[in-house]
């Protein structure tokens, strides 16, 4: 079973990396980009085929390691 975890900065947290990308896009001529936020995509391959267990594990993985709850949110999807 495969899963994807998306880690994104919470709303209101300044994202200097996103701002740098925004400015670079602007200098490439993409003047219509209003905002950029950079996050992380983490792909996992799980041994289990038990979906509820996978969901429970992914939740604690997000809370304990993959995201820092002070500044980041996470969500995940399970790919069959």
């Amino acid at each position: 079973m495969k899963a994807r975890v998306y880690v994104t900065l919470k709303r209101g947290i300044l994202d200097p990396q996103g701002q740098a990308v925004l400015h670079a896009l602007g200098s490439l001529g993409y003047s219509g980009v209003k905002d950029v936020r950079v996050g992380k995509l983490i792909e996992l391959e799980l041994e289990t085929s038990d979906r509820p267990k996978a969901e429970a594990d992914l939740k604690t993985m997000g809370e304990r390691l993959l995201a820092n709850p002070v500044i980041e949110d996470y969500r995940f999807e399970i790919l069959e």
Partner: protein
Amino acid sequence: MNHSAIRIGILVFPGSNCDQDCHYAITQVLGASAEFVWHKTETLPSLDAVVIPGGFSYGDYLRTGSIARFSPVMAAVARFAKDGGLVLGICNGFQILLEAGLLPGVMLRNHSLSFICKDVHVWVDNTATPFTGRLKPDQVLRLPIAHAEGNYYTDQRTLASLNAQHQVVFRYCTPDGRIIPDANPNGSLNSIAGLSNSRGNVLGMMPHPERSAEAILGNAAGRLIFQSMLDSLQTARLSMKAAVQA
């Protein structure tokens, strides 16, 4: 004061790179004893204090300090801190303390996105900690920083509590002690350069005292931090000895 009986443990993670400098400053400059403690160690040897040195533990993967905090030694350090032991985290060591929850908050990328390596000035906001006894209130120290993630952030409620409990120990300032945005190298919230836990026995700081511990390095201000820590440990030892004799 003879510090040779005091033993300081210096943690070593894969990617630590200021461990030797800390060892040198503590043993050669200040005359205390020091030993390296490998990150897989589950039980700390008999130590008076723990230093978590700077570097790039685990290559800064995921977030700075986020992998190191799960090293076996960090559970032992958490117990050591809970028992009142002194823990000093420098730069990446500060980041590890934040990820481990031994100090509140988190480090974001520097506002400029650049790795910054230069001397800065910090204002001493709290001289009542075991790490700042040799410093004077409102003293300005010149210390080197070298980091890409020193932009301290926490939520407003935690920030208010940090300020109310005098847990902010150092703030970035101008050479004459003014705390203004221009003197803040990395965008850190409230110009925070170093902070302690509420009990005061755990200190995290972005500047490197070990890189500024003797005159030959052009700057000996960092020595005051280590000296303060050793003074506190010596005082604790003497009072313990007095209690045993009484």
